[in-house]
């Protein structure tokens, strides 16, 4: 069907994103020659944030395969485009792979030699196994996003609807199982192991929910930006915007629930191997970020998202979504940066954001957005093979 390509306004976005990406990469190159260690750490931060959105897109796509609903059909192509950036993110993972000793204490021979506890964990935390696992995660994500896109394409072309949609449902079920495992293990590998002493069993779920929230907020911003233009405007109704808003509210609440659960359990246990995580994050300036998270990652979005009228208006909803995206960056920073900054025995480091943190966020973000738009433009913006979408398009045409 013609005329269902992504709107021309995406040209400008892609150019802007490419420019930002190139500028960020240049800054990172400069950072590499001045302070390579800091660059590796900042890069991990930027990488985790944007990869999180891509993973969240894939997870929501798979969830929608199981639940159905018009809200997910309207945004399916956005989600799939986000998920298809994941193989490229494997390339952006390379700096992390090369910088292992600069990021992770367990990858440094001197730390391992001096620390009996870390030595006990080297059977799992060692460079070859770490990299093999990363290859496995990216392999699973590539496979899932590839199969999703392929079968979704087949639906567009009208090849055997019943069989293909049943396949997509199966992919949703099996895929979510794999996502649960890969997200949990990748969160433990890439983020939790920055401090190899500390552990929390709810950490993986915290990442799952955070990634889904980031993805949902990103998609809402996209919908507000392009929802008024052809072809999205042909099928997008207030009801779908309302549904997206409800889902974002649910993810905000779930994030608060999981985060608080981790805090309450560790606070109540007050054990020496667990509690330093929060002691470190509630002093030296980090406590202001913590307070900011309580207010702007939960209280404010929760309170305003209760309003039905706000959720049904794409513009106001997108303002909340933009705030959520921004505070997601802060949450990730608060979660990993205190450990990134201080594993050399210097005691608890204060909050000293480095300019390279922003540069890496800009570089990875620019590249990611460029890839996202590229994937988005490759295919029709609406899954025209789905009966519900077909019906809406025909009702509109007649």
């Amino acid at each position, binding site marked *: 069907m013609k005329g269902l390509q992504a709107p021309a306004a995406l040209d400008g976005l892609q150019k802007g994103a490419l420019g930002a990406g190139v500028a960020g990469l240049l800054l990172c190159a400069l950072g590499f020659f001045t302070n390579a260690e800091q660059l590796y750490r900042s890069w991990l931060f930027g990488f985790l944030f944007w990869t999180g959105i891509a993973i969240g897109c894939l997870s929501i796509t798979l969830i929608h395969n199981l639940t159905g609903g018009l809200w997910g059909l309207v945004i399916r192509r956005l989600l799939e485009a986000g998920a298809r950036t994941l193989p490229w993110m494997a390339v952006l993972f390379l700096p992390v792979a090369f910088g292992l000793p600069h990021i992770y204490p367990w990858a440094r021979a001197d730390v391992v030699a001096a620390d009996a506890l870390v030595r006990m964990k080297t059977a799992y935390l060692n460079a070859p196994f770490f990299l093999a696992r990363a290859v496995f995660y990216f392999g699973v994500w590539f496979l899932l996003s590839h199969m999703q896109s392929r079968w979704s394409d087949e639906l567009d072309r009208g090849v055997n609807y019943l069989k293909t949609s049943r396949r997509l449902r199966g992919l949703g079920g099996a895929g979510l199982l794999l996502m649960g495992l890969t997200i949990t293990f990748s969160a433990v590998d890439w983020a939790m192991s920055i401090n190899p002493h500390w552990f929390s069993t709810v950490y993986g779920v915290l990442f799952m929910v955070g990634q889904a929230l980031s993805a949902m907020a990103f998609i809402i911003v996209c919908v507000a930006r392009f929802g008024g233009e052809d072809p999205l405007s042909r099928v997008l109704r207030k009801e779908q915007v309302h549904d997206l808003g409800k889902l974002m509210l649910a993810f905000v609440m779930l994030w608060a629930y999981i985060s*608080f659960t981790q*805090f*309450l359990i560790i*606070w*109540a246990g*007050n054990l020496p191997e667990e509690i330093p995580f929060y002691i470190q994050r509630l002093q030296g300036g980090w406590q202001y970020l913590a307070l900011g998270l309580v207010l702007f990652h939960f209280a404010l979005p929760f309170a305003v998202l*209760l309003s*039905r009228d706000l959720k049904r208006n794409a513009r106001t909803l997108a303002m909340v979504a933009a705030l959520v995206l921004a505070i997601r960056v802060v949450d990730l920073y608060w979660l990993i940066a205190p450990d990134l900054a201080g594993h050399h025995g210097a005691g608890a480091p204060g909050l000293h954001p480095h300019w390279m943190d922003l540069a890496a966020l800009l570089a990875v973000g620019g590249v990611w957005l460029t890839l996202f738009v590229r994937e988005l433009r490759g295919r029709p913006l609406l899954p025209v093979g789905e009966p519900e979408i077909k019906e809406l398009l025909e009702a509109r045409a007649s």
Partner: protein
Amino acid sequence: MRRRGTGTPDIHGVMAEFNTPHDVVEAAHRVHAQGYRKVDAYSPYPIEELSHALGFHHSPLPLLVLLGGIFGLVAVYGLQYWSAVIEYPMNIGGRPLHSWPAFVVPTFDGTILFASLTAVLGVLALNGLPEPYHPVFNVPTFALASRDKFFLCIEARDPKFDRDKTRDLLRALPGVVDVVEVEH
């Protein structure tokens, strides 16, 4: 027929019967556009557009639920504060008496409890339930409202209500199957 006063039959309203949800929504739109406000519709299952068409935009229930939730929040947090800090100050694990993280979960539960109780009781109260008698059940076919028919009733207490004009209006609606008067 029970009559009251000087020959004007005292009726509850006039009711139209429809076969499809589309027709009843369209009817509700038209009746609302004509200025009728004391209108109710009956359907075997919820139709989202219908309450919009009838002009039920803002019910006070969400606000009541919010107030109920806030009451639960304050009450349960207050109860914990009072018992742990004022009435029974005990040293537990060396923690401060006012250890707020421990209070959060019961406070959350209390908020949910009072909000949902307000929702349930509020729905009943605002709808005037339980209501052992309602005139619409005097219409013989009304039992089908819980099966496969859709009804729209303009009540006599509506200021615009006029027995003949309102009935003619309903009769002229598209898709109408039958129009009957609803007796008290």
